[in-house]
C-alpha cells in the first residue's frame, strides 16, 4: 500500500523536473563543437576523403549505443531481477531507448559512409547484419515494454530480453575477425595504439567526450521523465 508521504514525495519528483536541463545544454554545445572541429579543422583521410570524418560521429555512437547502452540495459535489468527495485527498471528502459537512438545513428552514418566508400548503402556482410540484428533486438525490447500493461511483468520480461541482447555484443565485436567482410577492423577498440594521426586522435577524443556527455544527459532526462511518469500514474491510482 502506498502511504500519503510516499505519494507526496512522488508528487514532488514530478514538480522537480527542470524546464531546461543544463547537462543536455552542455552536451548540445559540445557536440556542435565536435562537428565544427571535425568538418573544418581536422584533416581528411588521404584514401577515403572527407567522408572519413563521419568517423567522429559513427564510432562514438557505436561505442555508446552498442557497448555502453547495452551493458547498462543488461546490468540494470539483471539487478532488477535480483533486487526488484523499480529504479533499476527505469535505468534499463532509459538506456535501451537512448541506446536505440545511438544505434540508429550508427546504422545511418555507416550506410552513408558505405555508399561513398563501397558504392552501396547496404551489404549483407557479418558486421552490418549483426548490428542490424541488435537494432531489432533493442527495438523489440521497447515494443515489448509498450505491449505489457502489468508493471512487474513488463520489468521482468524486458530485463530477460535486455540480458540476452547483451550476449550479441561480443559477437558483433568479433565479426570483423571471424568472417571476411567489407567492414574494417576496429581502429580504436583494439589492443594496439589507434592507427590515427595526432590531430585525428585529439578530435576523436573530443568527440568521444562530447557524445558521452550527450548520452548520459539523455539517459538522465529520460530517467527523470520515467520517474515522474510513474509517480503521476501512482497519484492517479491513489
Amino acid at each position, binding site marked *: 500500500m502506498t502511504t500519503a508521504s510516499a505519494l507526496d514525495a512522488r*508528487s514532488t519528483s*514530478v*514538480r522537480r*523536473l527542470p*524546464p531546461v536541463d543544463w547537462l*543536455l545544454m552542455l552536451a*548540445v554545445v559540445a*557536440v556542435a563543437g565536435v*562537428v565544427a572541429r571535425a*568538418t573544418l579543422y581536422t584533416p*581528411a*583521410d*588521404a*584514401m*577515403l*576523403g*572527407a*567522408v*572519413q*570524418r*563521419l568517423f567522429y*560521429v*559513427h564510432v562514438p*555512437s557505436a561505442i555508446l549505443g552498442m557497448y555502453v547502452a547495452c551493458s547498462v540495459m543488461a546490468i540494470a535489468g539483471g539487478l532488477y531481477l535480483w533486487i526488484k527495485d523499480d529504479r533499476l527498471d527505469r535505468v534499463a528502459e532509459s538506456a535501451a531507448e*537512448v541506446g536505440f*537512438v545511438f544505434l*540508429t*545513428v550508427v546504422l*545511418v*552514418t555507416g550506410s*552513408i*559512409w558505405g*555508399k*561513398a566508400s563501397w558504392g552501396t548503402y547496404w551489404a549483407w556482410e557479418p558486421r552490418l547484419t549483426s548490428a542490424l540484428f541488435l537494432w531489432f533486438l533493442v527495438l523489440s525490447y521497447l515494443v515489448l515494454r509498450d505491449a505489457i500493461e502489468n508493471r512487474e511483468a513488463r520489468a521482468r520480461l524486458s530485463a530477460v530480453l535486455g540480458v540476452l541482447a547483451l550476449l550479441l555484443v561480443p559477437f558483433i565485436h568479433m565479426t570483423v575477425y571471424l568472417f571476411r567482410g567489407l567492414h574494417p577492423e576496429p581502429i580504436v577498440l583494439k589492443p594496439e595504439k589507434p592507427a590515427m594521426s595526432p590531430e585525428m586522435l585529439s578530435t576523436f577524443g573530443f568527440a568521444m567526450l562530447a557524445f558521452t556527455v*550527450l548520452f548520459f544527459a*539523455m539517459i538522465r*532526462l*529520460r530517467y*527523470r*521523465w520515467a520517474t*515522474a*511518469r510513474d509517480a*503521476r500514474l501512482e*497519484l492517479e491510482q491513489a
Partner: protein
Amino acid sequence: MLQPQTTAPVPERTGPPDTVSSMKTGYVVALAIFFAYIVLLMRRVASVRKHT
C-alpha cells in the same frame, strides 16, 4: 593540313575522392536524429509537468 585526331585528355585522379556531400549528409542526418529525440524528451517532460 589535317590535324591529328586526338581525344580529350583524361585527367589523372590525384588525391582522395570528393566525398564532401556524403560527409555533410551524414552529419545532417545524425544531428537530425539526435535533435528529434531531444525534442521528444522535452515534449514528454512538458506533458508530465502540465498534467500534474
